[in-house]
């Protein structure tokens, strides 16, 4: 479904972060990427999502090279195909959770955005807090809402950047359990960046980023 071919990225001049990296992701499988701090995990995730551009290499998504997409085309592609869950939630503080969750669907001109958002909120057990603002709910609830937002447009690929990095152990386990059950239910490809090996073990594949290259463990 997704293949990265010879992806290179320099962090600063002379320091290579990703070095002719190759990676293949299959449909419906879950992948965990681990690695030390500063190894380039988040950069790789940003390149996959199109938020950052690689210096060299190709990103092929369903046979289509998305690495050369224009900014606007990339936004549109991301909107319909990729959902992202961030470590720091990244909600718009001016919107309620429901509005935040439904926003990508609204951008995609989906008329049932609200119903869909409510269904997802029910599934992720946050229906009782959807009308609250981000600052009024707990971290665990926020991350579940972030997952709901990432899933609202039925993406083919879900990217998660340290989704439990900002949560306690109990909340982390709850969030990961929900994430795994939902992604399996809808046959979604998930790519999770995490430094927590225990959480990574629940994924189908655990990958390690080392010296700018991905190794499968």
């Amino acid at each position, binding site marked *: 479904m997704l293949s990265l071919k010879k992806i290179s990225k320099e962090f600063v001049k002379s320091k290579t972060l990703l070095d002719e990296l190759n990676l293949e992701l299959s449909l419906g499988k879950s992948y965990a990427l681990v690695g030390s701090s500063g190894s380039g995990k*988040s950069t790789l995730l940003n390149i996959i*999502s199109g938020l*950052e551009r690689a210096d060299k290499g190709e990103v092929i998504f369903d046979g289509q090279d998305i690495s050369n997409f224009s900014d*606007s085309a990339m936004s549109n592609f991301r909107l319909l195909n990729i959902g992202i869950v*961030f*470590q*720091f939630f*990244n909600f718009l503080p001016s*919107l309620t959770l429901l509005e935040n969750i439904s926003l990508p669907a609204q951008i995609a001109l989906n008329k049932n955005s609200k119903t869909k958002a409510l269904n997802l909120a029910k599934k992720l057990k946050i229906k009782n807090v959807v009308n609250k603002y981000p600052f009024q709910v707990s971290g665990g609830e926020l991350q579940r809402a972030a997952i709901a937002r990432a899933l609202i*447009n039925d993406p083919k690929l879900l990217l998660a950047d340290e989704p439990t990095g900002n949560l306690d152990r109990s909340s982390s386990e709850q969030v990961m359990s929900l994430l795994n059950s939902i992604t399996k239910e809808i046959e979604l490809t998930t790519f999770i960046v995490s430094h927590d090996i225990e959480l990574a073990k629940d994924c189908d594949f655990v990958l390690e980023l080392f010296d700018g290259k991905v190794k499968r463990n």
Partner: protein
Amino acid sequence: MKEIFNLLYNYSFKFYRANFLKIVIAIFSMAIGLAVFLSIKISNDVAVRGFESSFENFIKERTLRVGSNVTHDLFLKLKQSKYFKLVNPRYEKDVFAIKTNGDKKLFRLYAYDLLSEKVNSVSHKDKKKQNALLQPGTCLISSTFDLDFTDSISLIINSKIRKLKISNKIESENSFIILDIANYQELFEEFNQIDYIDIEIKKNINLNFAKKEIEKIVGKAYVVNDKYELVKHKLQLTKSFRLNLQFLSTISLFIAILLLYNLSTYLIVSRRKDIGTLIALGLSKKKIAILVLIENIVLGLISAILALPIGFLLSSFSIRFVNTTINSLYTYTLPTSGSLGYENLLIVFLLSILVSLLGSLESIFYSFKVEPYENIRFFTYNLKYKKKISIFFYIGVFLTLFSLSFMQVKYLNNNIWMFLMLFILILGILFICPSVLLLISHLCKKFFSKIFSYHTLLADAEIKINIFRSSIVVMGVVLSLGMFFGLSVMITSFRTTVVTWLNKVTPADLYISAPSTRENKNDSYISIQIFNFLENNKKVKAVYPIYESKVKFKDNFVNLQGFSFSQSSINFLNYSNSNGAFISEPFSNKHNVKIGDVLTFYYQSKKYEEKVGAIFQDYSSEEGSIAIDLKKYEQIFLKDKPRGLAVYLKDKSNTNVLSQILKSEYSTYNFKIKNNKELRNGALKVFDETFKITYAMQIISIFLSLAVVLNYFLIMYIEKRRQLAILKAIGCDFRSSLVSTLFECFTLSITSILMSFLLGFLLSYVLVFHVNKIFFGWSIEYNFPFKLWLYTAFLFIIFSSITSLLPVLKNRNKNITRYLRNV
């Protein structure tokens, strides 16, 4: 304190260095407000200096002035009184001086008894120079006299050219000529009448007693005034003028506070985590508050330093407007330049501290409230705020209605109350702004949601979450644009009324008038020879004299005019009958005289009584005048001394020819000649110059409103980074972000414009129907400059839209991923 200074160096300084752009915006915003204030303050100083220099400089304390046209016999009787220390005769005339190129220039001429009295700056320690002034045919001129004279000066006196030797020049900001009284009497051939007499009262004599003694000697026909009564009118004008300027400078300061408040709250909000960390590290909340306070004061002082050159530069422009307005409306002053002065420096620095304090109050309060674990956003909109905004709304409505009702109370209608009520009115409207902003934001979301679904949602949410800061922007714009709109209605109404009035009251083809400076309007006359020439000229269909004399009315001198009502066009506001006297509207308002009242006035020891028959429209002076029919006038006053002539020609094409004939035939006579068009254009030119200060106020208002918008969106550039990054991450493209921001701007602009319209309308109502009546005493037709309002609103929306796009455009090509990692 050492701890705080350590923090200032090790934390604040580094924070500000890292946030250089924010700091530059903060400093500039405050500097602009202070600079506008400073420029107005300097202009105000210049205006006051101009007024003071035009006051009766030569009249001393414990001196009473008796006038006018006092007979020589009365002068001698006054001299004999035992209560008076000195009795000094005075003469004043407007005369033409002839330049070396032949052009004429009108100046004021004063005559004193230089032999017996020492008149401040006129007297000389140098006896030779003092004696030289007493020589026949000599005079003294002020150093600012702008003619190219060195040794002598040629004056037109009684239709003859007289050359006077200049004995010396004296320092003064005004232009004038001084003569010894003997020289004057000989030149003007006036021996039996003295223009007025200054009487210095002995130290042990009460001034009121002395006044009564003088009245016993001279009778009721003369006016006796002390120094303060003489300048009363000018003092009132000065006060009004200063109030006008102070009103605007206070508003500019208010806007400076709003701008700093906006930034200060933003800076503190952006550091909420830092503050939490510092508290967690053991710093007390009190120390945090002191730190915030010192930071703001330092910002304020830097702004003050920046404001000084900007303000001084701005003042060079505003002074020009101020000088023009004073010269046109109030009194002749020579253009003077402004100076910063220690007083202004001190005021600006003190104000910068005050503005810093007021601007940072909320932030200091917040510093006390913040908890280390707190991670909420400041000023978040929730139900609690909705209630607070409702309270603001009710207070606003109450203040607006209260001020408007209070203005209707007539006996409280004076300048101070009026300005206070204006402030309350403005405050009322500003308090309503947050509610209107929420309403419009909600309506925009509702009506446009089908076409622009999430754009309106984002715009509405951004406005709501930032409701106080968004409201401050709206308030700043409403304050400045409202002023602009209000003033524009006043100017348009005034101009339209004057144009209509001029068209009605100037039907003659040629107008000939006696020269006069603003200080004295009726001490020179048209020669009867000119009148006779015109009456016998074949080109002339008719010639009507216009008379004007000063008469005593209620201890004041007022102008009494005499002209033919059957021939002149006069616009009556109220008409009862053609008998008796007609009074101008300002006269009626100032002296509270109505139709049917009996006017009692004195002229040359005689008492006259006339019943008021009508009130007429008159915009030529704010002092007001009485008018009586020509025939009646000629019974009371001298027939051969008209102040002006209205000439009707058989063939209008002969206007210029006749004008040239008069100028060449009577080149040594004192008169000014204008055709109908020149007279009207001249009057409108004076009008426009009078309103130059108002135009300056309008420019400043626009300038301030743009500064507010620019300030808001420049901060948005920094603040929007994260929002744009999130939107991009969830698949929103650049254009969608642009549209959302435009919607936010549209809502803010529409609210600002609508509220500015409301404030402008209410202000215009107060200016046209209340302030105008208090200041000038005349009523004007309400005229609405629709096009100007619409164009301004349109241009404002364009400007704010372009400005609002800056944050999105500036962030477009930035690597946004790092903002996604910031909390």
